């Protein structure tokens, strides 16, 4: 019950064909369907009423996690989040991405959702996006006449807004060479274990002789898009962090945020917790306290 309103429906057999179809409509009128876990419920609830739905599911060769030549990994447009979670290559070489997707509790949702699709929803709470921020990931976007590869951070321009051009479809995530040698941490707070996060933090860093190099800190749920905590990174880079410096970095991270109050949490709490989680994530990365952090508020 609760049928869907009429839309035109296409099942192209290539991304190029999908792009051509998409161009026939205004950007807001055409929706690309990958997993459907976000799109179909929204259509059922009349939150989105597309004129056209372009399903990618008949396009072969889009479901892959494979080596990018000499180094790095590519993840295809129809690769599910569950596949990413189960991939030994991801677990080994991109631990922070594994930790991010592992925190998403529902196996059904992970099975149906694609990572690329998740990015295209452009939620500031996306665990996938956050971990890709600190991995320096890129996105390949296929357009009518050309394609481009952009850093993941440039993909996000606003709340649920991406920098996709009207003729573009996101085709692939490109991960850099293995990050197995990096320290990392992924932390989030939720209302229940299966909820979307109230706040989430991802960190990768290279630690050499106790000294921080290449610090990457990303914060979620505290701005219209996931953001990098650049001031916090600046404080830590090149330093041997002690308790005071870590606290200062965490404070700097929280200062740069613009939290809101919504059904999940309050602006004040989010700001405080970004500080706490950033501190803990840095500590975890530095292996200072070695605490294990449980999934969800209630556990």
């Amino acid at each position, binding site marked *: 019950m609760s*049928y869907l309103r009429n839309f035109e429906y296409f099942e192209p057999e290539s991304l190029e064909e999908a792009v051509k179809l998409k161009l026939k409509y205004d950007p807001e009128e055409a929706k690309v369907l990958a997993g459907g876990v976000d799109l*179909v419920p929204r259509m059922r609830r009349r939150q989105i009423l597309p004129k056209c739905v372009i399903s990618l*599911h008949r396009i072969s060769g889009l479901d892959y996690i494979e080596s990018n030549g000499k180094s790095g990994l590519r993840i295809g447009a129809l690769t599910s989040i569950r596949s990413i979670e189960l991939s030994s290559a991801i677990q080994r070489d991109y631990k922070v991405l594994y930790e991010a997707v592992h925190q998403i*509790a*529902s196996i059904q*949702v992970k099975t149906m959702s694609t990572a690329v699709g998740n990015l295209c929803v452009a939620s500031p709470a996306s665990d996938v996006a956050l971990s890709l921020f600190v991995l320096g990931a890129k996105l390949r976007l296929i357009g009518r006449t050309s394609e481009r590869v952009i850093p993941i951070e440039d993909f996000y321009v606003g709340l649920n807004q991406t920098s996709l051009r009207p003729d573009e479809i996101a085709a692939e995530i490109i991960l850099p060479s293995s990050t197995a040698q990096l320290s990392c941490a992924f932390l989030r707070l939720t209302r229940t274990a299966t909820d979307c996060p109230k706040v989430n933090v991802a960190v990768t860093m290279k630690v050499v002789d106790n000294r921080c190099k290449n610090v990457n800190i990303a914060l979620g749920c505290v701005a219209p898009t996931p953001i990098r905590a650049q001031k916090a990174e600046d404080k830590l880079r090149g330093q041997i962090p002690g308790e005071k410096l870590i606290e200062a970095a965490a404070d700097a991270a929280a200062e740069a945020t613009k939290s809101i109050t919504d059904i999940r949490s309050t602006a004040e709490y989010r700001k405080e917790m970004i500080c706490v989680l950033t501190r803990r994530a840095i500590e975890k990365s530095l292996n200072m306290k070695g605490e294990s952090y449980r999934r969800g508020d209630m556990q």
Partner: protein
Amino acid sequence: MSKQIAKFNINGRPYEVLIEPQTILVDLLRDQLDLMGTRLNCGVGECGACTVLIDGKLNLACSRLAITATGKDILTIEGLAKGTTLHPIQKAFAEYGAIQCGFCTPGMILSAKALLDSNPNPTKKEVQEALAGNLCRCTGYLKIVDAVLAAADAMGKGGLA
């Protein structure tokens, strides 16, 4: 787009059905095929009551357009028992008190099946994680977890699939 004939393979049986692209899989199953065991509640992919297996993978029928499931093997709860012989998971659910109102039960059992198909000897924690996408308001989950562990044990000993 107008209605078209689509072919489905559900519980090992072929079906030819008239659908539109707008038809959601759960509505196809319930409204057109009288396979009412796939339940509908939240409609937003949260409760798992509409869980089915498509090519052996867990799916939420409330969030899937039926047209994207043609040509695939779909297993609903009706396809699990063989006549009146219950699958060990179904038996365990009955014996361990894992069923109360029964509305979440089909989805729970299929999630349990997906778990045991890939991990025949799960820990308690792994069972909890496997069922995280299925909400139950009646049982508090404790007996459901007990039932899945018991089913794993029975299947390990009896070799039943």
